[in-house]
């Protein structure tokens, strides 16, 4: 593959893009300069750091290290979800973390071992970027689903409590709420199937093309990725929503969300 190398000075040129955005912020007094500066520094620091870490992991090729990185990624994904949907009464983090850990590990292994058929399912070059995409997409899907569920449970409290009063379990009382939450989480990845390739070329495919891959190969990988994301967001969303929904109620089926 013929990849055009990028030197440090070329990255410095990129700062010009940030200056353009900063100028826009100054002219219209958006007060985004500080966020822009911090974001730029973090982008450089985080990606350079991750580049070194990945180089190291690709070089020593140890399954435990790959799984450790995977767990680390799940931790931060669950943490981000927790920050977005934090509820005083309901423990979200632990349930989200374990749900994502198990469901995404299974989907990632199926993709590398069964679909792509890499020699070792944990081959870092494949396992890490693919599971990273799963994580990023699922994080958004699960956040959307949980936000929707908490909001609907509050809004529809009278309907939920009516069902409880008439002898319904918390599962029966929230069947509609649950469906709406799962729908909210799964819809974006399904919508993405409709527009992929029409509106924009997806990130992974673009990356492969830039790295010199044959477009046909890039397209096949992108198809795998798109379908993988539909499955992983569905599985992740369903498990997390089911598990967190139960924690919104006491053992005596009393709604504890205020």
């Amino acid at each position, binding site marked *: 593959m013929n990849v055009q190398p990028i030197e440090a000075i070329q990255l410095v040129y990129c700062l010009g893009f940030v200056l353009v955005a900063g100028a826009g912020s100054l002219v219209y007094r958006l007060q985004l300069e500080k966020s822009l500066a911090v974001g730029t520094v973090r982008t450089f620091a985080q990606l350079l750091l991750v580049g070194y870490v990945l180089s190291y992991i690709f070089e020593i090729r140890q399954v435990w290290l790959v799984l450790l990185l995977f767990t680390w990624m799940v931790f931060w994904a669950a943490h981000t979800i927790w920050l977005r949907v934090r509820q005083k009464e309901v423990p979200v983090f632990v349930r989200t973390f374990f749900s994502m850990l198990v469901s995404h590990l299974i989907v990632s292994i199926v993709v590398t071992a069964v679909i792509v058929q890499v020699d070792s399912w944990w081959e870092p070059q494949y396992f890490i970027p693919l599971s990273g995409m799963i994580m990023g997409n699922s994080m958004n899907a699960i956040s959307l689903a949980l936000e929707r569920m908490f909001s609907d449970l509050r809004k529809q409290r*009278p*309907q939920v*409590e*009516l*069902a*409880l*009063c*008439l*002898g*319904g*379990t918390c599962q*029966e009382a929230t069947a509609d709420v649950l469906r709406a939450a799962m729908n909210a989480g799964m819809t974006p990845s399904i919508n993405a199937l409709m527009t992929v390739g029409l509106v924009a070329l997806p990130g992974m495919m673009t990356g492969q093309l830039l790295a010199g891959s044959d477009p046909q190969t890039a397209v096949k990988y992108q198809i795998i990725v798109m379908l993988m994301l539909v499955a992983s967001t569905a599985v992740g969303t369903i498990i997390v929503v089911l598990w967190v929904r139960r924690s919104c109620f*006491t*053992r*005596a*089926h*009393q709604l504890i969300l205020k």
Partner: protein
Amino acid sequence: MKIELKNVSLRFDDKPDLLRDVNLTIEKGDFLLIRGPSGCGKTSLLRLLNRLADPVGGEILFDGQLSEDDEVTSLRRRIAYVQQTPVMLEGNVRENLLFGSLFRSAGDVRPDDAKLRNRMNSLLLDDVGLDDVASNLSVGQQQRVALIRTMLTGPDVLLCDEPTSALDPDSARLVEESIEDMCADDSVSVVMVTHGTYQPEKAEYRVFEIQQGEGLMEVAS
């Protein structure tokens, strides 16, 4: 069913006690009226009785025993609660009336249209069709539909939170008579929260007053 509240207290978060040391025994066929100012804990007391909430202190015994968490759904069918603001679900009147029969705890019991019609006529809902959209009914009609929906669960105890607050005097009297009949004829215990001066005519009754942060006090009926 006999319900006993022993030194029951209730509070929310760090707020002061809403109810404190409430002692009350509800025997089969009792008719209790609960009065008191707004926000004093009348509705919360009803929620405790059918375990939509649990007390922070004291205990509630149902037929002499604490209720198990995994039996709470059948308990709630036996101690039915009519909410103050009637909740109508999407769909027609029939679907609303049969909502309680959708749950596992209901078993296979599903009243037919004739029984539903009969119940509706007895509460002056003759001009309301089973296929009418429930949310289009007036508040007074919705309140009566909500009452029938609860009665269809065949409860031993009926908890009513101001069930006639949105009704004209004639409709209100019909609803009150219907509840009194359940008590007098079927020995259903009734606990009714009320602001007004309502006095049941067909059933023996006791009146309790509740003050915020305090217990229940029986007053002369």
